[in-house]
């Protein structure tokens, strides 16, 4: 297990009254994504718990691209990962942010 933390410059803050949303399932090769509003001065904080050790640089690259696409801020994103590939991670994050904000990127 490895714990990774990232912060990104945000975009438009998400409405603070949005309810927390959970997307995806922590099954083999998959991940669950919990998105919560948080007062982070417009930034995005991401915490990853992953079963696959040693892929911090790839997480950084995937998450950077996702939050360049999604100009959102003031959210806390918590991820439990059971060895998902970057393709699955990106897809699940898009779904999670869509679920949370009620709209597309």
């Amino acid at each position: 297990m490895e714990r990774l933390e990232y912060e990104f410059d945000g975009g438009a803050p998400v409405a603070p009254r949005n309810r927390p949303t959970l997307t995806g399932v922590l099954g083999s090769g998959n991940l669950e994504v919990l998105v919560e509003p948080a007062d982070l001065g417009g930034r995005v904080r991401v915490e990853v718990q992953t079963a696959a050790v040693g892929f911090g640089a790839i997480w950084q690259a995937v998450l950077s691209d996702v939050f360049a696409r999604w100009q959102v801020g003031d959210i806390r994103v918590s991820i439990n990962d059971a060895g998902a590939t970057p393709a699955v991670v990106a897809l699940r994050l898009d779904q999670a942010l869509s679920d949370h904000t009620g709209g597309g990127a």
Partner: protein
Amino acid sequence: MKEWNRLGQNRAARMDRAASLARGKLVAPGDTGALLARVIEPGDRVCIEGNNQKQADFLAKALAALDPADVRDLHIVQSVLALPSHLDVFEKGVASKLDFSFSGPQAARLARLLSSGQLRIGAIHTYLELFGRYFTDLTPRVSLVCAAAADRNGNLYTGGNTEDTPVIVEATAFRRGIVIAQVNEIVDTVPRVDIPGDWVDFVVQSPKPHYIEPLFTRDPAQISEIQVLMAMMAIKGIYAEYGVKRLNHGIGFDTAAIELLLPTYAESLGMRGRIATHWALNPHPALIPAIEAGFVESVHSFGSELGMEGYIRARPDVFFTGPDGSMRSNRALSQTAGLYACDMFIGSTLQIDLAGNSSTATLGRIAGFGGAPNMGSDARGRRHGTEPWLRAGREAGQDGFRGRKLVVQMVETFREHMAPAFVDRLDAWELAEQANLDLPPVMIYGDDVTHILTEEGIANLLLCRTPEEREQAIRGVAGYTPVGLARDKRAVENLRDRGVIRRPADIGIDPKLATRDLLAAKSMKDLVRASGGLYDPPAKFRSW
């Protein structure tokens, strides 16, 4: 006086030695070992019919049980090594040299035997290449083949799994070799004659029906949403774009997803009758919904597939079937169709390098590739024009008039356990050094690959004009692998502007719509129901 019939005289001597064991052509199962010991001579080239599915398992075991004091130094010329007995002959010293095509399940043990010096490998061939050598410098002296049934005259009925039998028997019988067949049953009259009896010397009824493996059954329940996305990209970005009608598919879940998206997604694009009409393909159960939806006009097969017999019998307009109703497959002829008469091959791989070379070879395993290199190569001698072939030729900017076969490699950028599919150097090179092979076991040569499709996009290598462009096009769809992260971002954006790289959005595909709901069947049971109950899957694939 020059003697012109030494082969015939040698054959006669062998037949004389064995005569007392046979009644007519029939040999009792208990006499099989004695038969082999009498007709096989040390140093012979021997072909054991072991193809992808159908296995002459009883004869293979009998061969492995021979005493190396009587029979040794055999040169095995066999397309597929699938069973432990196929390697036992080397471990025991009955055989010492091997020419073959594919050894999937035995690949690790083969590598061990090679490194311990218990066998020498001539070459790892494609199927057609090995079959070609049966008729030139690797003609078998004795062949051990496999059929469903025989009559007392030696006429063989193979049923749907004709596979390699015709090519093996033809090469052996017409060069004064000896053909021994194992059959599941002896009957008065075979349902149809797949191999004429006068090409067959001995028939043994095996105590158990021959082994057969359902190799081409993919449970739709295991298809992921990423595979659905990639299938959508293939259909819209390649099949529809080029109007590909004649094609071969690989055997993985990626291409099974395409088969299951034809009646849904391709139908919604108005593609019925315009793509994927004529196939060189085994009877994949995943193709049933597309057949039922009227997409498919014909399917010619390398071999059959367990459980599909009843469905094939009920769809004679689609499959090649005999007057008895069962399928007639033929590996050599279907491979020829795949090489010369298909406009596209699409399949998966394990590794792709920066030149587009792709390989499923991994360290410690010597597996070969069977038919993929035949289907996945441009037939440079081809003469007939079709729109997809001519368009691919135009895109490649070649000398004005010749076309190109579309050869598509379809991979997720990472496999399970985060193994990258894109690498700087294929494991095949190291394997070649370790095993002292003449050339690295590359499955599809880079200069034959026309498109690489990943979840990140489609790289059209035909449009690349320099090796540098080609490398950046490959890096551009390699995602977050080290190879992908090392791309030149400006060069890749430039390639995207020119349409060399196309992202899902560039072909009008929203990844969020790529869900399993698009699959025409989500389970094995859906396939059975789509077939009207005619498909009867093996027990290991059931959940009802």
